[in-house]
C-alpha cells in the first residue's frame, strides 16, 4: 500500500475492513486466470479494445518528430475510464456486491460506472457536486438513462473533491452491500494499485503496438496528462521497464506535483494543493477532469525518484492544442488529453524533443464533451487559437 512515503490508507477505522476486503478480493482475482479472461473479453467485445495506435502523420511532419497517439478516445463511453470500471464492476460481482458507488466530476467516470453497472446488472449510485450537476446536465441524464442514481453533493465547493468525500462517507454506511468504484489511481490502498493494474492495458497495448510500428520498438518519449493520474499510470506501467523518457503533464491550475506539497486527502498521502494552514485547495483547469487538488500516490513517488518528469501546461496552450490536433489529424481530443498534446507542441518547438525522435502520446478521451467549453472559449477570447 506504499509508494515510498506516499499512499497508505487514511480512512476511518470503519472503512478499513472494506478496504481490506477489496484488497483481498483484487489480489485473488488478479491472480485468477478466469477473472483475467472474463475482463479481457469484456474489454474486447464491449469496450472495443485494443484501441488503435494512430501515427499522427501530418502533425509529425509539421513538428519533425514522430508522434503516435494511443486512442483511448475510441474506447466505449469515450475515455479510458471504462477500463477501470469494467474491472471493478467484475470484482464487485465476484465479491457479491449488488451496487457500485462512484464519485464524478464532469461526469465521465460516472457515465463509465453507470455503463459497467448496467452491463453487469448492478445498481449504481453516483455522487456529483451540485455545481457540476448544473454544468454537466447532459452527462447527468446519460447516467440516468443508464439506470444510475445521481446524488447531488452540497458540501464544500460542490465539485469533484467534495463528491469524493461524500462517496467515501456514503461507503461507510453501506460497505457490506456496495463496492466503491473509485475513478482514479487515488484513494486508500488498494485503489491506487488496483486502478493502475486495471489501466495498464493502455500501456501494455501501446508497448506492443509501438514494437510493430517503430523501428526502435520503444518510443523515445511517452507522454500522458495527469489529474488523479489513471491514464498516465496505465500508460507508464507499460514503459517503466524500458528506456523511454516518461512525461506527466499537469494542468497549470491543478498541478499537485508541481505546486502542491505532501498531505493526506481522500484516504491517501501524496502531493496535495493546500494553503498555508493545511486546508485543501480547489484546482482550476479548463479540463474538468484535471480539476482535482491531489494526485495518485504512485505519481508522487515517481516524481520524487525522477523516473517520470512532471510538468505543466496552461489553458491557452491546451485550447490551441485541441485545435491543432483537430486540423492536422481529424481528432478532437478531450481537453484533458490535450495537455499531453500541448506539451509535445511546446517541447518540439523548444528543442526539448529533438528532431527525429519518437513520442507516444496517450489521448485519454474524446472531446465531444468539451465542445461547449471550446465554443465559450472562442466567444470569450478571440485569441484562443
Amino acid at each position, binding site marked *: 500500500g506504499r509508494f515510498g512515503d506516499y499512499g497508505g490508507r487514511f480512512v476511518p477505522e*470503519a472503512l*478499513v475492513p472494506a478496504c481490506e476486503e477489496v484488497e483481498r478480493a483484487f489480489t485473488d482475482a488478479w491472480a485468477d486466470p478466469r477473472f483475467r479472461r472474463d475482463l479481457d473479453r469484456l474489454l474486447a467485445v464491449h469496450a472495443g479494445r485494443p484501441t488503435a495506435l494512430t501515427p499522427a502523420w501530418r502533425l509529425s511532419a509539421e513538428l519533425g518528430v514522430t508522434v503516435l497517439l494511443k486512442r483511448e478516445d475510441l474506447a466505449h463511453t469515450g475515455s479510458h475510464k471504462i477500463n477501470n470500471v469494467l474491472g471493478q464492476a467484475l470484482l464487485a460481482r465476484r465479491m457479491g456486491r449488488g451496487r457500485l458507488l462512484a464519485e464524478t466530476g464532469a461526469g465521465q467516470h460516472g457515465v463509465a460506472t453507470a455503463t459497467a453497472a448496467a452491463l453487469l446488472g448492478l445498481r449504481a449510485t453516483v455522487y456529483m457536486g451540485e455545481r457540476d450537476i448544473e454544468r454537466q446536465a447532459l452527462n447527468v441524464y446519460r447516467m440516468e438513462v443508464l439506470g444510475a442514481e445521481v446524488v447531488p453533493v452540497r458540501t464544500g465547493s460542490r465539485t469533484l473533491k467534495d463528491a469524493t468525500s461524500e462517496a467515501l462517507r456514503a461507503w*461507510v454506511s453501506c460497505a457490506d452491500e456496495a463496492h466503491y468504484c473509485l475513478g482514479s489511481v487515488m484513494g486508500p490502498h488498494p485503489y491506487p494499485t488496483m486502478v493502475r493494474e486495471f489501466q495498464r492495458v493502455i500501456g501494455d497495448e501501446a508497448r506492443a503496438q509501438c514494437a510493430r510500428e517503430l523501428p526502435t520498438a520503444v518510443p523515445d518519449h511517452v507522454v500522458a496528462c495527469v489529474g488523479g493520474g489513471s491514464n498516465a499510470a496505465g500508460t507508464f506501467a507499460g514503459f517503466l521497464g524500458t528506456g523511454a523518457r516518461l512525461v506527466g503533464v499537469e494542468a497549470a491550475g491543478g498541478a499537485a506535483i508541481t505546486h502542491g506539497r505532501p498531505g493526506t486527502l481522500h484516504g491517501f498521502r501524496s502531493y496535495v494543493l493546500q494553503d498555508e494552514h493545511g486546508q485543501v485547495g480547489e484546482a482550476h483547469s479548463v479540463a474538468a477532469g484535471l480539476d482535482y487538488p491531489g494526485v495518485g500516490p504512485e505519481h508522487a513517488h515517481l516524481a520524487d525518484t525522477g523516473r517520470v518528469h512532471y510538468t505543466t501546461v496552461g489553458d491557452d496552450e491546451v485550447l490551441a492544442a485541441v485545435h491543432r490536433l483537430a486540423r492536422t489529424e481529424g481528432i478532437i481530443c478531450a481537453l484533458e488529453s490535450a495537455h499531453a498534446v500541448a506539451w509535445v507542441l511546446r517541447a518540439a518547438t523548444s528543442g526539448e524533443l529533438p528532431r527525429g525522435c519518437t513520442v507516444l502520446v496517450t489521448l485519454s478521451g474524446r472531446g465531444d464533451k468539451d465542445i461547449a467549453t471550446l465554443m465559450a472559449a472562442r466567444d470569450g477570447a478571440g485569441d484562443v487559437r
Partner: protein
Amino acid sequence: MSAATVTGGALHRHLGSRAAAGRSLLVPYVMAGLPGWAELVGEFAAAGADAVEIGLPFSDPILDGPVICEAAERALAGGTTAATVLAELPGLAAQVPLVVMTYSNIVLHRGAPAFCAALRAAGVSGLIVPDVPFAEAAELGGACGAEGIDHVLLAAPSTPPGRLGEVAQRSRGFVYASAVMGTTGVREHLPATAARLAADLKALTGTPVLLGLGISSPASARAAAAVADGVVVGSALVRDVLEGRGPAEVGRRLAALRTALDEA
C-alpha cells in the same frame, strides 16, 4: 509505540478515575471558530462535561455528516486555522480536559511532532484523528506519546476482533466507539450496532469506552450509557450553534444530557 510503554496522560487518568467512580462520561464537541465557541467550552464544563472535544475545521472531513461539514465550512470561511484556535485555548482556563479532533492533513501539515508539541503548549491533553486508523497510527501515536498527549483511537462495528483488541489496548483517554457504520450526525435512536461494539470493547480494556456518532437525545444517551462508559455528542450541539443559539442555551441542552446520563 509498544503496548508495554504506553501509559496514559492527564485525560486518561481524569476520565479513567471518573468512570471508575461510576460516572457516565459526557464529552461534547465544539467546532472551533464558530461564534461563541470559546464561551461554549466554559458552558459545557459548567453543564457537566467530563472533557470537551475541540474540532479544528478541515476542508474535507470524510467522517463528518452534513452538520459538522457545514460548521467546518463556516469556521474556515471565518478565517479559523489550527494556529488561531490553539492560540486561544490557554485563555479559556477550561475546567475540564480538552481533546482536539481534526483530520490528518492538518496534523501532517506541521508534522506530527510539532503539532503535538503545539497541542501540549496550548494545554490540550488528547487528540482524535479519525482518518488515521490503527494501521496508520504508529507515527502519530509516537508523537503523541512524546508530548504526553493521549491519542484516542476509534473502533467501528466493522472492526474485526483482532484489531479491536489492539485498538482497545492502545487507545488512551478513552476508546471512541463508533455507534454506527456512518458519519457524524443526529440520529433518533441508539443504533443496534452500538451495544455489541461497546460490550466487546469493554471486555478488552479498562480504558473508558465512549459511544459516539449519532447520539443526540437524552434517550439515546441514556441507552448508550447503559452499555458503555459514556458518550460523545457532537452534531446535536453544533446544530444548535448553527441555528443561532447562544452558548448558554446550548449549554442547557448539554445539561439535559448530563441529567439523563446521571439518571441512567
